[in-house]
């Protein structure tokens, strides 16, 4: 009864109030980030021209072409898929981070914590090096499956497969204790990281490409990559948003959640699979971009509180806007990996926020 009483405030559907404002600001920020990121880049294309190109190509408006064809290619084939990928990946990572932090009740949890990063990295690097190490296989960088390169397909499969493996190893008598899951994820990641290090040693000149992938980069974003990951992420977004109530209850602990009628083990598996699907789809088209999935959920908990009805959509909006702006910074800084920008600018901001909010306790244990 006590647990139920304590739970009442966090499972009830209350007016959004201040949280609604945060969502509105997030949406406006995202639109502003989208416009700035499409309009700016290493080659100058005027804002008016950019709008005209988008209107002509995307909306089919009868605007006469007064710009060079190269400007159209830059906007439509290079920048737009890249900006949309940044939004999708940023939103996906922030949302997955929110879910894992609640699920594992661990403030250090990020989307990669139980093996996604190590598995996806090994997959991607195998894809990068296959043409060099095993030329007989004839899997060149130009090899395309469903419009995707071997790197994306293997990264997605590696991330998803690793988490499923970790989960099955950690399962004991039908239960998956959180601590066992974390430690199993750490151990399996270590094994895979050794494989990554070995491949890096053998990589020769491909090391630069591997390094860029590990740091996370949106330079390779394409429409086919987006078409692969967007539906998976959309399903992950949708199904996770519907489970906000269960996430709130899980914050109380497994026992309390079970008393409230949740099939805890089943729910944990469902949430893990959904969040990992989103993470793997994001990582497949961008590499392992750090920081966004760890810090965006914390910042938003400080701003809007722990209720996942608000926290989940807010993390999608702010994660998307943050990564879009960070990638714009990365492009304007001469094409450095975006992971450097997120960490270099985001981490000091997070430190400042932590210092400023006296109650430093990130509200994970409700």
């Amino acid at each position, binding site marked *: 009864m006590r647990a139920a009483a304590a739970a009442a405030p966090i499972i009830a559907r209350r007016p959004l109030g201040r949280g609604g404002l945060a969502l509105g600001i997030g949406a406006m920020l995202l639109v502003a980030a989208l416009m700035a990121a499409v309009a700016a880049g290493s080659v100058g294309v005027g804002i008016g021209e950019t709008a005209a190109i988008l209107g002509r190509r995307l909306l089919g408006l009868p605007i006469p072409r007064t710009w060079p064809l190269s400007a159209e290619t830059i906007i439509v084939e290079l920048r737009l898929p890249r900006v949309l990928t940044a939004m999708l990946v940023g939103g996906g990572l922030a949302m997955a981070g929110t879910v894992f932090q609640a699920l594992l009740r661990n403030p250090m949890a990020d989307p990669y914590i139980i093996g996604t990063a190590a598995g996806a990295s090994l997959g991607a690097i195998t894809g990068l090096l296959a043409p060099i190490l095993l030329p007989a296989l004839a899997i060149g960088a130009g090899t395309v499956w469903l419009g995707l390169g071997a790197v994306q397909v293997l990264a997605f499969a590696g991330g998803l497969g690793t988490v499923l493996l970790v989960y099955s190893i950690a399962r004991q008598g039908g239960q998956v204790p959180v601590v066992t899951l974390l430690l199993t994820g750490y151990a399996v990641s270590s094994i895979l990281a050794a494989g990554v290090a070995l491949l890096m040693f053998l990589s*020769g000149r491909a090391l630069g490409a591997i390094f860029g992938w590990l740091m996370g980069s949106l330079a*390779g974003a394409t429409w086919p990559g987006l078409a692969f990951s967007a539906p998976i992420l959309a399903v992950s977004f949708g199904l996770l948003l519907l489970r906000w109530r269960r996430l709130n209850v899980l914050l109380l602990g497994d026992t309390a959640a079970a008393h409230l009628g949740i099939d805890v083990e089943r729910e944990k598996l469902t949430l893990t699979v959904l969040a990992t699907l989103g993470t793997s789809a994001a990582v497949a088209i961008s590499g392992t971009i750090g920081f966004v999935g760890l810090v965006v959920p914390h910042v938003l908990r400080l701003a809007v509180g722990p209720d996942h009805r608000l926290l989940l959509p807010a993390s999608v909006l702010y994660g998307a806007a943050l990564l879009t702006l960070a990638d714009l910074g990365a492009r304007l800084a001469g094409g450095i990996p975006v992971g450097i920008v997120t960490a270099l600018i985001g981490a000091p901001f997070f430190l400042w926020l932590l210092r400023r909010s006296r109650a430093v306790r990130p509200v994970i244990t409700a």
Partner: protein
Amino acid sequence: MAPRLRSPLLPLVLLALVLGACASPSVSPSISAPASAAPSQPRHVVFPVTLTDDTGRVVTLTARPERIVSLAPSNTEIVCALGACDRLVGVTDFDDYPAEVAGIPKVVIGAQVDVEKVVAANPDLIIAAGNELTPSTVITRLANLGYPVLVLYPRDLAAVEGDITLVGNALDAAGLAATVVADMQVRIAAVQAALAGADRPRTFYEVGLFGGSIYTAGADSFLASLISLAGGDPITGDSLSTAIQLEALVAADPQLILLGDAAYDPSVTPASVGVRAGWGAMSAVSSDRILVMADDEVITRPGPRIVDGLEALARAIHPELFP
């Protein structure tokens, strides 16, 4: 990580420097006679022309390229040697030879290809480099955007000649390409003639020391083949990582050590090699046969000046034959 990252670029930088140092654009006197034997009439290429590049990609050029983007310094040197410097609309920020390339817009900055800048240059031919010097993802991307992309990836000196011929066909400069190749062949033949019957000292070419690993020519690498042609017996590392373990190097017992890294790192000197732990046992150290290769740039940049690199190596390995 950072030191390993530098290793792929350093040979390139060095090659560029060496190439610059050995600049001899004019035909040397000894080869002028054979050069005149090359076709003097410019041979014209009929467009559209279909070419196969070094990675097996088939590229069709519908018309004579007038807007060329080069993604590697060696490619730039080939284009300029074929008299097409003024048709370059994009190069890399490593490009330093010939001097005319200084004013051409840079589309590769800090080894990163800026795809937006390449597109903005509106090229009708892009010449990329293999072996991930131009990342394969970038090559795929540019090809998917509809640009003709020729990838040059020469594995030995003969392949550099093949690349010059290939680019000559692409640029409608086949006659000039034949002349350049003939010049190179004459100079290569002269080196070979001088080396006939000479001994082949075991030669270790130091590309760099990073994080405790010793980097040298990889087995089957361009550098190893060049050392062989210059009259040395190359001591090679792993074909992929190009690293060699100190034990293996001591066992191979080099008779000659060439310091390619000394061209850009003044702390690397013959004296500093002598005091490295374990190196004293090598014949090259005890007989003081350690040389600084200031010409590293032309040795590692596979363009027309690669013959300068070959001659520099031959002089270093057999000073008695090349006074």
